[in-house]
């Protein structure tokens, strides 16, 4: 019944089915991942807030050369915009945006909006009215800041995230980024060191024992991160189980400080992420025939020699896959440092959350998230280049 003529059509419809099957997933990813991600990246350079609150001022400053004070039209536009903004209760948005240029101007905008007369018709000289409300209006700086903030795009968020803005606290986020990488790298190193013997044990015992050990390894994965972090708090705190045991065994006299510092963060992070290091290592060790080591030994290589020249090179894919997985997961940890760390141990996600929820500086939050994303991608690319993508094993 089937003829040659039918074949292309069948292949085509099979393709269509394939596409139809993948489409829901693709749409889902597009809607829940790529579009929000793009939106987030855009938010870090988006600068249309001020234009919405003070449209007249933005228009009046469009052709201003930035030297000295702008003309009376700009003063009038700013005054009218602020009166309107106060009525619509949106002056806070403009105040916040200008506060990113210099924090004192946040107050300038708010107090000017409050101080201006509600009856616009009564004002004849806007320049002196504004300067009377706050003398910052008499200096060029604030006008230059308004001109800079008129949008539609800005680099203010990215440059303050990278510490290029100047000022006493400007390097905050660069330090936090460095700290984030140091903590993630330390957790990765500890995880790999602990995972090596654990995976080796799993790969060398009989199937029943291996199943039991695997259960023990995976069980914590099914417990919420919040619960595991809090449990570590209970164990490690000053009068916690760990310190009490050490004291009752007379090993120490005064309790060790193990929480609200780096130690607590690393202990919990390592515990939470360890399974992700063990599993890839286990897979690569399991795939390695035991006879290879025996052959190496029988051909005269010592235990160390055969480990480093035969065994280790062949489990590198497992080490790199596990290491990469742990490292990337560790970069995004929020709740564990929050519960177990001090203020000096908070990682970048903490400041992203702070800027999103508390400071409501979404531009800066987006810039920080973008930087974290880009830095991770760069490190990944570098890593693939050094180790080779086929050896990453993921």
């Amino acid at each position, binding site marked *: 019944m089937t003829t040659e003529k039918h074949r292309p059509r069948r292949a085509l419809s099979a393709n269509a089915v394939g596409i*139809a099957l993948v489409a829901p997933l693709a749409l889902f990813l597009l809607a829940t991942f790529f579009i929000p991600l793009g939106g987030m990246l855009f938010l870090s350079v988006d600068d249309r807030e001020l234009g919405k609150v003070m449209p007249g001022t933005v228009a009046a400053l469009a052709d201003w050369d930035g030297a000295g004070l702008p003309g009376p039209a700009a003063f009038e536009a700013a005054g009218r915009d602020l009166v309107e903004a106060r009525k619509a209760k949106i002056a806070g948005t403009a105040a916040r945006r200008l506060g990113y240029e210099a924090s004192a101007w946040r107050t300038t905008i708010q107090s000017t909006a409050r101080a201006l007369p509600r009856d616009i018709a009564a004002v004849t000289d806007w320049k002196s009215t504004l300067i009377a409300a706050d003398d910052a209006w008499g200096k060029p700086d604030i006008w230059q800041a308004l001109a800079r903030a008129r949008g539609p795009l800005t680099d203010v968020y990215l440059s303050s995230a990278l510490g290029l803005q100047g000022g006493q606290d400007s390097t905050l986020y660069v330090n936090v980024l460095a700290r984030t990488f140091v903590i993630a790298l330390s957790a990765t190193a500890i995880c790999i060191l602990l995972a090596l013997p654990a995976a080796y044990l799993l790969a060398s015992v009989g199937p029943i024992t291996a199943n039991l050990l695997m259960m023990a390894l995976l069980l914590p994965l099914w417990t919420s991160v919040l619960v595991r972090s809090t449990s570590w708090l209970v164990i490690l705190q000053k009068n916690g189980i760990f310190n009490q045991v050490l004291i009752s065994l007379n090993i120490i006299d005064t309790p060790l400080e193990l929480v609200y510092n780096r130690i607590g963060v690393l202990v919990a992070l390592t515990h939470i992420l360890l399974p992700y290091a063990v599993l890839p290592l286990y897979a690569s060790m399991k795939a390695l025939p035991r006879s290879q080591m025996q052959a190496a030994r029988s051909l005269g290589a010592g235990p160390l020699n055969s480990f480093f020249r035969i065994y280790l090179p062949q489990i590198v894919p497992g080490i790199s896959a596990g290491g990469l997985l742990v490292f990337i997961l560790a970069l995004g940890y929020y709740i564990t440092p929050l519960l177990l760390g001090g203020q000096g141990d908070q990682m970048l996600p903490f400041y992203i959350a702070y800027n999103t929820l508390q400071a409501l500086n979404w531009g800066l939050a987006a810039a920080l998230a973008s930087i974290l994303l880009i830095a991770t991608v760069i490190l990944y690319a570098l890593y693939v280049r050094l180790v080779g993508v086929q050896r990453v094993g993921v």
Partner: protein
Amino acid sequence: MTPEMHYETINQERGITMKTRTAILHSALLASVLALPGVAVARDLTVVSAGGIFQDAQREVYFDPFRKETGIPLAEDSWDGGIGVLRTKVGAGEANNWDVVEVEAEEEALGCEEGLFETIDPPTVGGAERYIAGSVTECGVPANIFSIVLAYDGAVFKDGPKTWADVWDTKKYPGKRAFRNGPKFTLEAALMADGVAAADVYKTLGTPEGVDRAFKKLDELKSDIVWWSSGNQPMQLLGSGEVAMTTSYNGRIRGANAENKRDFKIMWSGNILNIDSWVILKGSPNKDNAVKLLEYLGRTDRQVEWPAKLGYGVGSVAAQAALPADVATTLPTSPEHIAAGITVDADFWVQNIDALNERFTAWAAK
């Protein structure tokens, strides 16, 4: 050939089996289910307070009787404060799931100014004269009167700290201290520890030098400070022995003593008095019921029960007058306690909370 078989054959010819058809149907179904959360559903009136034993007490005194008497379903949530959270919630539009929120003084003022709250018509909530003069504002009615105080364990320090300067003295009183995460209440305490008179605290904080002075004083203690954010934490930190002393909302201390048979003591000297308000978030779909709730919360028979629960004060004038003396003297509003401390300057924090939050975050991260 039966019709079914015929159908099967045709489909096979097209390269589609029943199985794949079902699979396509399932994925379409899955996609529509995933899209569902976007659909807005009418939700119950939601009241948001500080959680823990505080909200448990509010439930007993206010929320449960309200549910019983009015039959209006009332959902609860809790939060740790911060004007940014409210800005986000209101900015979320229909996705906002909060209606009535207990806020601190500067959050009330800032939020009202920024249009985050519905304005309140006093007669609809029982009239402004129900409350202490001036405490009903454009957007809020008084919810709770509390003091930020220092608490320590009487079993650890027989002779506890008497002033904020003592709190800074880690030789005389060894151990860590817990403070509320953020500049508010922390900078005030630092200045009082540095010898600024209670009456001059906000005058000093109002100058750049005063702020520098407060942060410099905090530097001295920084390595011994654990920061708390939710109202439950101070008593946990103190109870587990993690810290030797902590700032706390005054009522939590009494609650912890009663619940866990502890001997936590309060240092009233330099306490910081606050009035929290109830506000209704802008655009609440449950505004009518929210107003009903506010009116109910201010009733004298409810308010009079509140101080005895945890030791917090009330905004209702009639309830205050009806309090037995042995309760009234333990409250933050007793003349003795007011004289020993300061009252939070909401105007100062309205002007400065954003800038000082920023500075505090940078300082703490170092």
